[in-house]
């Protein structure tokens, strides 16, 4: 695994009830890139993310992660490579204590207990949650849960970090804290989000999904300056690019 490319070719997904979630999606994401996938509700973002980790099987098209095509055989390796953080941290945290939760992945990788303990300690420190180690996850605040959920994935040393709505439901301080944390990660990062200001700050590249197809793919600032595109895809400029709502400066 040398360059951790994520390559999606003509991906199509139709749900059992006939809903076409993805019509034809193609893109390539290179090592170290930080990419946002944005779009209106129902544009296919979550479906796309579930494909990157092999939960959903495509009706047609292909996905390659690094040197492997995504197949049943390569699934275990791909799931280690692609760390997935779910939108609702409560779905991700299911063990009695934070420690057990963060240790769940490394144990499944077959690492010895001492190594697991070291890893858990290191990643919890990295996300600033070392003091929560023995707490039960359901007693944590939203921001703490999110950071622990990220730690559960980091403990498996993934190369690619995929996050569904990382900042949703967080207070401004927790959001800032999380963004600082994400900015420092050297991984290839793929986010879906409606928090467009976060996208501007963290992602150099943005892919816009609209009704199951890639409507635009390019530098984030370019995309957010294309008013016609944004309007068509039921999006709007991030607040930080809209100018002052009181005095009108910068409009």
């Amino acid at each position: 695994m040398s360059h951790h490319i994520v390559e999606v070719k003509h991906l199509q997904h139709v749900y059992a009830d006939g809903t076409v979630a993805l019509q034809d999606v193609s893109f390539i994401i290179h090592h170290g890139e930080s990419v946002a996938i944005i779009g209106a509700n129902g544009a296919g973002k979550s479906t796309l993310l579930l494909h990157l980790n092999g939960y959903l099987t495509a009706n047609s098209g292909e996905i390659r992660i690094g040197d492997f095509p995504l197949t049943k055989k390569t699934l275990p390796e791909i799931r280690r490579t692609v760390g997935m953080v779910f939108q609702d941290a409560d779905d991700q945290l299911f063990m009695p204590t934070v420690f057990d939760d963060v240790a769940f992945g490394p144990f499944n990788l077959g690492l010895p207990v001492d190594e697991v303990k070291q890893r858990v300690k290191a990643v919890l420190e990295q996300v600033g949650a070392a003091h929560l180690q023995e707490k039960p996850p359901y007693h944590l605040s939203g921001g703490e849960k999110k950071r622990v959920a990220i730690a559960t994935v980091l403990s498996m040393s993934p190369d690619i970090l995929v996050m569904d709505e990382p900042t949703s439901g967080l207070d401004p301080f927790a959001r800032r804290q999380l963004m600082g944390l994400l900015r420092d990660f050297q991984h290839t990062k793929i986010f879906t989000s409606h928090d467009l200001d976060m996208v501007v700050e963290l992602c150099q590249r943005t892919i816009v999904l609209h009704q199951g197809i890639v409507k635009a793919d390019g530098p984030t600032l370019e995309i957010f300056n294309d008013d016609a595109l944004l309007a068509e895809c039921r999006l709007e400029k991030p607040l930080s690019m809209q100018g002052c709502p009181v005095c009108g400066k910068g409009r």
Partner: protein
Amino acid sequence: MRSIDGAVLDLKRLDLLATADSVIHRLDARAKVLTTLVFIVTVVSFNRYEFTALFPFFIYPVVTASLGNLPGGYIVRKIIMVIPFAFVVGMLNPIFDRELFVRIGPLAITGGWISCASIILRTVLTVGAAFILVGVTGFLSVCEALERLGTPRTFTVQLLFLYRYIFVLTEEGARASRARELRSCGRKGLGLASFGPLIGHLLIRTWLRAERIHMAMLARGFTGEFHSRQVSGFGWRELFYVAGWSAVFLVLRMENGAQWLGRLVTGGLS
């Protein structure tokens, strides 16, 4: 729906107690599971009219809980919750079994009452032992121990999922019920009619949520095996623990400990 939320948190507390450190906690889970099994088998092996001989068996849960630093009040509350179920099982005995068993002054006690009391006492003992086992071991480690003792993995994994599903179901149930309560403005709402769709929704919601949790588990390399951080082996200490308690249970099974103690006291006094 504070009560449902509260009950779930209370149950989760049992798992948290298992993360503590004590002489009992440090023992290999297999030793504790085996001892509890021997205990349960011995307790249920008594004939149905046995009552007094069961009392000395309280020594096992009491000693284990106190060595494991489990909060007594909490465990007692948990056990009290299951007594009504045991009573339902035994409540017909006094009606059908009217054979006179003991007469204390004017009070005649029939065999039915004795066997009903015996069922309740056995429930308290066995359920108590099981609660304490989880409290000093953790559900995960209990399942792991069962697997290492030869139980098929399919069975232990099912057991673990079932246990997790209790939390998923009750959490979703509490949410749905809260939403209903808030919109029924303190009255009965639509009454029974609203419960049908509510339960249907609950099933689908818990199903979806369980699937998401399963996804999260798969994402972290779950292959049907659970691991715990406790490393322990079955050494002399464990052997001694299992053999020691088994011997105690055997003696208490053969000899009526309560009567023996009674004889000792009355004999000593006379």
